[in-house]
């Protein structure tokens, strides 16, 4: 019997993002920034397995894990970013805090309609791009939760197949498949639209068939729904070294919150597909998650299904 992760029509049953591991160069500096500016509460240090030297902070009911890595890859010019849901008053407060710290805030035109109405980007001290998304459902005075995460892939079609057909995520939006996207790319090249880093590029044609040295294009992007969150994958337009094939656990990492039965089901399906994975691993009571299934996408991005532990 051909086992699929999705076992459609029932897709991967996740609540959303459980936690997010973000790599930073200076851990103490990052902790201070996320606490002071984003008003996240420190839950603990070095309490999450497979995360190295780290701090765990609460972003609503979700967690942000700042993990120390002085050798982290600079991804400022790529589409990689993390986005948080906030209320409008919370965003105003964060904007004031950023202004007080002299942190530049950028607003771009957006490819994804859900983000077009309102956007707000800045970098943390380590160079991780952060986006704030105003949500009518956000009531918390600070960050209400993680809205979406964007990662890089080197093969969009394989990744599309993995996420939509194997994992069973639902498609949210795609960019780069339609003429309209490339018409917009020309607007960007003409200076008519300011777009976020990693979404546009100037292709150097290797053919003489057209009398143009460069062609403005958009980078392929595919956004998918995972519970109440969205995962975005961007086609990288430069090579990044991928982790070794046999490595199932690593950072940065996106952990999706699921029930224990989903971990077992996904493990069986990954095994049937010959994918690299580890677990389910049961964690000690001191960890903020009860169990984890570690795996990776076909682009080498580290993923996890986790069972969050109820916090007091």
């Amino acid at each position, binding site marked *: 019997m051909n086992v699929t992760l999705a076992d459609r029509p029932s897709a991967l049953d996740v609540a959303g993002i459980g936690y997010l591991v973000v790599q930073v160069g200076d851990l103490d500096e990052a902790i201070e920034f996320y606490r002071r500016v984003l008003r996240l509460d420190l839950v603990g240090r070095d309490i999450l397995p497979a995360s190295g030297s780290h701090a765990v902070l609460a972003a609503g009911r979700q967690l942000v894990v700042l993990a120390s890595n002085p050798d982290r890859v600079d991804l400022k010019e790529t589409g990689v970013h993390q986005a948080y849901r906030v209320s409008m008053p919370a965003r105003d407060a964060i904007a004031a805090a950023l202004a007080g710290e002299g942190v530049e805030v950028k607003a771009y035109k957006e490819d994804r309609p859900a983000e077009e109405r309102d956007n707000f980007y800045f970098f943390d001290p380590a160079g991780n791009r952060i986006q704030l998304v105003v949500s009518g459902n956000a009531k918390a005075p600070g960050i209400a939760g993680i809205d979406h995460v964007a990662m890089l892939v*080197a*093969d*969009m*079609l394989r990744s599309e197949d993995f996420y939509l057909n194997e994992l069973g995520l639902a498609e949210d939006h*795609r960019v*780069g*498949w*339609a*003429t*309209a996207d*490339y*018409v917009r790319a020309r607007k960007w090249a003409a200076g008519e639209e300011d777009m976020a880093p990693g979404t546009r*590029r100037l*292709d*150097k*044609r*290797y*053919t003489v068939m057209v009398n143009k040295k*460069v*062609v403005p*294009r958009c*980078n*392929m992007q595919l956004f998918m729904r995972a519970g109440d969150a969205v995962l975005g994958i961007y*086609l*990288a*337009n*430069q*090579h990044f070294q991928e982790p070794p094939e046999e490595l199932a656990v690593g950072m940065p990492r996106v952990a999706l919150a699921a029930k224990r039965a989903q971990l077992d089901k996904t493990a069986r399906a990954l095994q049937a597909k010959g994918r690299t994975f580890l677990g389910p691993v049961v964690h000690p009571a001191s960890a903020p998650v009860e169990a984890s299934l570690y795996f990776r996408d076909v682009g080498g991005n580290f993923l996890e299904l986790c069972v969050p532990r109820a916090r007091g």
Partner: protein
Amino acid sequence: MAEVQSLSHSAICVHDLKEAEDFYCGILGAHAHAGVNFITEDTIKGRSVHKSVVLEDYLIALALAGDFMPMPPDEQLRGAHGFRHAFTVGCERFNRTLDVMRQRGIKFQGPVTHPEKGPFGQSIYFKDPSGNFLEILWRRDENVAYDATPEFNGE
């Protein structure tokens, strides 16, 4: 003479690769074959953005138009927007094909019955989502084996 052998493939421009692939694969029964500029290496080389599908043994390259193309009027289902691709089905299957098209909501013109002395039996005419004109027909000569490469007799 150049002595070309056969028709290899067609490259047609479309406005949406996903929509086009869904149409050619999901409705006409082609198989997804490949995509270009969907991997990092292609972006570095600046290759054109296209996908390809294979219908039986014939490859159709779906090239993404870099700009919006003029579209034929909605109500026009038969024509040649530069060209028209005609696909063959067996006579016994033709009516079932029409049923599928109706079930999938594909508007078509026909069936049009061709002259009895000609090679074509009946055709329907329709468009893909990007306005490329298409045709499905059955042939009266479907059981006739033509000599594809008549030999030159040297005289």
